[in-house]
């Protein structure tokens, strides 16, 4: 079931030469698309460090969209191929951690493809809405050290969750 009023928060990485200009073009052309993606401009998709994706997911993002130039059209000639390689290995590691690989998407968009950038964004938001919130580590607050004397730290779980009744 998809909870329809769930508004996903998505972090988008763009490359300065192609996909960022595609988003600018979508702007100048007043194309309307889903507002859930917040963009970060890198010089190249090759600059994307998997740490950024892990950081975004662990800090509350429900999905991450990586965009760059089409293979062969990279301003730095071939660096988007490295982005593709990292993306493919990262997705496998995320699967191992129970995160649906569809939460991280790679989209190539050239500077002339404003419309494509807008439609891919909206499509991705719908995909994430279907997957539902990720809510990574938000409720436990585990990142902040527990203050002294916090007895019932939410970390310690009540036994009932796994204890079986002893047959009479």
């Amino acid at each position, binding site marked *: 079931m998809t909870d329809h009023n769930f508004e996903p928060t998505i972090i988008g990485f763009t490359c300065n030469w192609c996909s960022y200009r595609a988003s600018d073009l979508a702007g100048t052309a007043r194309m309307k698309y889903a507002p859930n993606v917040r963009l970060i401009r890198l010089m190249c998709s090759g600059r994307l*460090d*998997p*740490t950024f994706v*892990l*950081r975004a*997911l*662990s800090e509350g993002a429900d999905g991450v969209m990586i965009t760059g130039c089409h*293979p062969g059209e990279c301003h730095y000639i*071939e660096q988007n*191929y*490295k982005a*593709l*390689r*990292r993306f*493919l*290995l*990262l997705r*496998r*590691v995320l*699967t*191992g*951690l*129970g*995160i649906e690989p569809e939460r991280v998407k790679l989209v190539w968009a050239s500077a002339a493809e404003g419309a494509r950038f807008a439609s891919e964004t909206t499509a991705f938001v719908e995909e994430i809405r279907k997957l539902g919130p*990720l809510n*990574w*580590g938000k409720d*436990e607050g*585990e*990142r902040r*050290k*527990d203050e*002294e004397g916090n007895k019932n*730290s939410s*970390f*310690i*779980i009540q*036994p009932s*969750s*796994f*204890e*079986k009744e*002893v*047959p009479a």
Partner: protein
Amino acid sequence: MTVNGSKPKFAMYWAASCGGCEIAVLNTHEKILDVDANFDVVFWPVAMDAKYKDVEAMEDGSILLTLFNGGIRNDENEHLAKLLRRKSQIMVSFGSCACEGCIPGLANLSPVGDIVHAAYNTITTDNPNEIYPRISYDVPEGELHIPKLAKVLRPLDLVVDVDCYMPGCPPESHQIAAVIDLVIKVVKGEAELPPKGSVIGAGDSTVCDECPRARNVKSIKEFKRIQDIAPVDPDLCLLEQGIPCNGPATRSGCNARCPAVGAQCIGCYGPAEGVMDYGARLITAFSSVIDANTTEEIDRILDGIPDPTGQVYRFNLAGSLLKANRDAWKVK
């Protein structure tokens, strides 16, 4: 470093760990005598008899040096971590378990219910009535308690404030010896403790720095498991032979003990200085040097690493950004 007359107190405790770190301390051979000579060992469960209430009775801050190894798995570990923190001046995260969760941290890959189920229901466990441990149980003598499990295993620094870290699984004996000398000098006022939160007993580069093997420009056509490679070239970098060696991203300090003898580094010394997520460093290192440009071709090469999550987070899962599997987090 105020010490009232007699020798400074020393404590060592083991939470969710395997005891290897204790053995590593013993493994410093005669150096252990220096410990005894310079320190008054007040609390060391594996080596001497001492009770928790003895520690609770001590004044706060009276223990100079505590080497705390092991991750925080249950409420007993947490209690002791906080207790020893209150009682010690220098609290050291000793060994990979305390620093980043290590092998016990891999339990974070599954929800805690499955862990208990697995422990009491494997093929080798004869448990027809499916009896599980009870948190408390009444016996004539009174009510018995056993520690309650935490949802996920946490490294020490997520529970208490840590003064410095000593990575390694276990830390190399020569590094332990060096740290003991350092603390002794500090006690004598001849040396200064490194700034709070710094890593001691390890290098400031990565394993490749100390690895004897020859290294060239990397371009990998396929990943293989070490046993699938007939003769492993004794001199050439293992990664270049297609073996996923974690050396490039693992902190130096162990003199590249494993790669030197032809075993790939599996990353027990944890991430290099200032690295936010150890796994991410390996993901980007391995994938950037793959020699393929199409999704199919890249996927074919990546299939050479059967368990990528385990490969990149073997020691560092609990200390990583995501820390655990999503199902583990979901347990209420």
